[in-house]
């Protein structure tokens, strides 16, 4: 059962009617509903398509945070075979906000890292809503260094509202852990490809998104601060998150123009959560092409390409 967002109310109403009709038809096989259903489906599809072609930045934020949206573990289970989950930062703890390990992508051995938000209450608590602590970033560094050592490309799935803001995270050096993780991304002699699948929340995201190629889902967002956070600081009114979302330029389409991301992965009509299989297929295709483009490049070429790419951001605007 799809959960509808507030702006999808007209679609929800139509789909409700369709469900009703189907229920009637099931109860009484003599009733023919085919034509009605078809017309309603057409209408609903049209509304959905109009909505999704013109999503406002705030609506995109809602889609990006949709609880049924595919999360990192969904991507890993769909795209990675032979997956071996690895755990721990070897210093303090295992942080399940960051998942990852070894596996195969289209047969090629890779290291995969993802920020996992969790899909139900239990999962969300277990993964701390995708908000990593220092040990999560140190685990990411450990995995990236393993990829570097064994010549395995690294794929990261970015999906976090931000690094965890808490006392113990600060005590263990949240800032240092993020800085070291970004530093590690920039040192890798293997290809690093990041996919922003939902929310790219500031420093918490850049720590694993300083990649040779940064891909972004069509309705994902990526920002230096959440629209809510910016609204409370800039307008002193958290309710103005819609304005802040516009001002901050957080959509994949805007970020592509700024050269901050390299390619947008198209989502099915109505968002990734409506047709996860189509999303996985599209992601697989783009990832395969991008990884192939780095095959055979030397460590130095890969490092230089990554550095020049980031140094160039903002220079040609």
């Amino acid at each position, binding site marked *: 059962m799809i959960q509808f967002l507030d702006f999808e109310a007209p679609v929800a109403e139509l789909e409700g009617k369709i469900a009703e009709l189907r229920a009637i038809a099931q109860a009484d096989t003599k009733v023919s509903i085919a034509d009605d259903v078809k017309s309603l489906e057409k209408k609903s599809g049209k509304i959905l398509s109009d909505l999704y072609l013109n999503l406002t930045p705030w609506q995109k934020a809602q889609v990006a945070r949709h609880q049924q949206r595919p999360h990192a573990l969904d991507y890993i289970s769909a795209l990675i075979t032979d997956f071996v989950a690895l755990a721990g930062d070897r210093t303090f703890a295992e942080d399940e906000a960051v998942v990852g390990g070894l596996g195969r992508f289209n047969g090629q051995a890779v290291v995969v890292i993802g920020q996992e938000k969790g899909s139900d209450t239990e999962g969300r608590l277990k993964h701390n809503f995708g908000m990593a602590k220092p040990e999560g970033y140190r685990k990411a560094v450990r995995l990236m260094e393993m990829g570097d050592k064994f010549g395995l490309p690294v794929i990261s799935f970015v999906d976090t509202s931000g690094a965890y803001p808490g*006392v113990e995270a600060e005590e263990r050096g949240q800032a240092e852990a*993020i800085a070291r993780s970004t530093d590690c991304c920039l040192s890798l002699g293997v290809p690093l490809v990041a996919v922003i699948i939902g929310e790219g929340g*500031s420093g918490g995201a*850049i720590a694993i998104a300083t990649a040779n190629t940064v891909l972004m889902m069509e309705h994902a967002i990526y*920002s*230096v601060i959440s629209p809510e956070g910016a609204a409370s600081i*800039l*307008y002193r009114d958290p309710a103005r998150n819609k304005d802040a979302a516009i*001002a901050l330029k957080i959509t994949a389409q805007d970020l592509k123009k700024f050269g901050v991301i390299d390619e947008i992965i198209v989502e099915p009509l109505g968002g990734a959560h409506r047709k996860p299989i189509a999303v996985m297929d599209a992601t697989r295709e783009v990832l395969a092409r991008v990884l192939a483009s780095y095959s055979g490049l030397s460590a130095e070429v890969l490092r230089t390409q990554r550095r020049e790419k980031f140094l160039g951001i903002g220079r040609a*605007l």
Partner: protein
Amino acid sequence: MNWIKNFVRPRIRSILGAATTKRDVPENMWIKDPDSGEMVFYKDLEANQFVFPGSQHHHRMPAALRFSSMFDGGEFDKLAAPSVPLDPLRFRAEKKYTDQLRDAKAKSGVEDSVQAGFGQVNEQPMVIGVQDMGFIGGSLGMAAGDAIIAAMRFAVSKQCPFVMFVASGGARMQEGILSLMQLPRTTIAVQELRAAKLPYIVVLTNPTTGGVTASYAMLGDVHLAEPKAIIGFAGQRVIEQTIREKLPEGFQRSEYLMDHGMVDMVVHRHEMKTTVSRIARLLSQKDARAMTGALVPVSA
């Protein structure tokens, strides 16, 4: 002391409330020690490197004074600020960002929050970067990022140590994602210093928070901090809202960070030049300088 109350207080408020910027301060200005409440003559405070004589509270120090307190004889070459695109987001909240920038430039007389200078520190060539809270909260945007990168690269070209005095409220929201991009961009320049095996000394001053902390501020060979500076990634209000309990005593202060292994030493401003110089000379394998005084960290 009625005359102080009626006559001087409003001005004090304006000075304390506004950012410390380059402007004419009346010589009869008094300023209140936030720790002890004692009134101190502004000129005396300035002469004491903006450290309150009684409580030793480290007040915000203007960038110009930071340079003159570090470089021999107060002499140095100012490094030109690289030019960057202005307001690519065409950002507008309550104020247009371009207006905010223009006002900040006019008020401070500088281009952006980071300035850099090249000169001698105890006869050793050094590049020093200073981030000034007075310029839109010391926030990190494209101009500051490029100024840091250029300064670090200048140190590489001179084969000399680089010292960064950090103070910032975080990323500059008005530049959106382009401000976030300064985290990896400045990290690249830190890596260039590292590859050249040049000392990179970070001095954390009050406050150092947000994205700035999560990049060049935490990647130094040595991390010094001024006493009682607030240093942290997440804001205290945000943390309080998340955990819904009171924060521990001294949370996110320099001394607390040292206790938790993030800072090497807490250094009084009066000892800063000697300390930086001693570390830079050791890391550059230069002989000790006869004149350097005893090195006593304040927390000792």
